């Protein structure tokens, strides 16, 4: 594959892992602030580790909102990973009064579960997906919070919670994707889902 992949540098991420992982799909460039050149980039990765507040502060401080909105306006792909997925939404219970990117309408709430220990840490199986290559595949999760979209049809992948409730694992709105798990840490399945997204198959 020969995509040009831009990764936001939110300073508190596993940049080396992301670099090693995304190099499998093409050329990788880290974006430190809005002055970085993104004109020939195919996809923007918003990675995720750390708190909602720390993530949004870094984005704002470095004017990275401009970069993100440029991808959105040009209808280029954006993939939010873990916290990066949550940042796509309006706000989070993790840090109230911090505004998210508002690219997808909905909120981020603490997971409550009777069947899982929390944080959700480890490998969990996707229950259902629009893409048959992904159903019943396991991915690595590491999160305490999860997204709740207003438009439920955007939530195209999930893991089961108690009483038929669900924890959202994949959200998709046009060319904006959110993955609650870490593809870069999900072995072969992680590689597969990124390939599927990049090839417009999700």
């Amino acid at each position, binding site marked *: 594959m020969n995509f040009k992949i831009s990764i936001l540098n939110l*300073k*508190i*991420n*596993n*940049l*080396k*892992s992301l670099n*090693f*992982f995304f190099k499998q799909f093409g050329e990788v460039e880290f974006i430190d602030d809005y002055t970085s050149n993104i004109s020939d980039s195919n996809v923007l990765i918003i990675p995720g*580790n*750390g*708190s909602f507040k*720390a993530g949004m502060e870094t984005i704002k401080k470095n004017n990275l909102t401009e970069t993100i909105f440029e991808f959105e306006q040009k209808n280029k792909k954006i993939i939010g990973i873990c*916290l990066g997925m949550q940042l796509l939404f309006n706000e989070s219970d*993790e840090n109230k009064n911090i505004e998210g990117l508002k690219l997808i309408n909905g909120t981020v709430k603490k997971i409550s579960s009777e*069947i*899982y*220990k*929390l*944080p*959700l*840490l*480890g*490998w*969990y*199986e996707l229950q259902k997906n629009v893409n048959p290559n992904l159903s019943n595949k*396991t991915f*690595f999760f*590491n*999160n*305490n919070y999860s997204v709740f979209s207003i438009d439920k049809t955007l939530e195209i992948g999930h893991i089961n919670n108690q009483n038929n409730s669900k924890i959202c694992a994949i959200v998709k709105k046009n060319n904006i994707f959110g993955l609650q798990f*870490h593809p*870069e*840490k*999900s*072995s*072969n*399945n*992680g*590689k597969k889902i990124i390939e599927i997204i990049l090839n417009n198959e999700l």
Partner: protein
Amino acid sequence: MEKKRIIPKLEIKNEYLIKGIQYEGLRVVGDPKEFALKYYKDGADQLLVTDIVASLYSRENLFKTIENLSENIFIPITAGGGINKIEDIKKLLNSGADRVSLNSVLFENTELINDVLNYFGSQFLTIMIEAKKIDNNFYCMKNHGRENTGITVNKWLDFLLTKDFGELAVFSVDNDGMSLGPDRELLDIINSKITNIPIIYGGGINKLDQISEIIKLYNLSGVSLGSSLHFNKFNIEQIKKLLKLNNININEF
């Protein structure tokens, strides 16, 4: 359902993978990168990398080791050993680690837990306990099992339960490298106190069937293995095969 994790533990000294007995009598096993890659290919769910010499020099070395071994490994790596400030953690992340484990420093600076939680979020932190039985009580050891903190495991767990962290990794110093089997007395204590946080256990596991047994009995989220994997007593494929036979939910890549 949660997938139970098999987590090879790589203890690092200088640039070598080492293994000791009861955390002492260390011997060189080989190149950590080679072992890490083998375990990844064999189907490990995560790696735990611990630098056993807590010094500034060693910490720089840990960054390099992690950077080196994480290159072609796409599973989570937890790194620890000698970490004592937020800056160290940021550097570890930039080297390729995904999570950190903290032990010794917490006995001198309990505030660091709060700092880490505020900065990185609670899912990010593994608290490691190295337990040793002295005069009928389990004590928390620090500096790679070398020094007794004087704090019992029971008391430490009471304190930890007031904090919000991602995972507890418990190691038996007495059974480490000894092929004595898991320390069930220690596991009983942990199990009676901690019910809602993922628990990883390591130390003394020398037979395949012990793994499914303790996962079931103590509702563990994972098992960490050193000697038995390094010295080829059994491999990850065999472990997973047996876990599957015992109806334990595992990850098949």
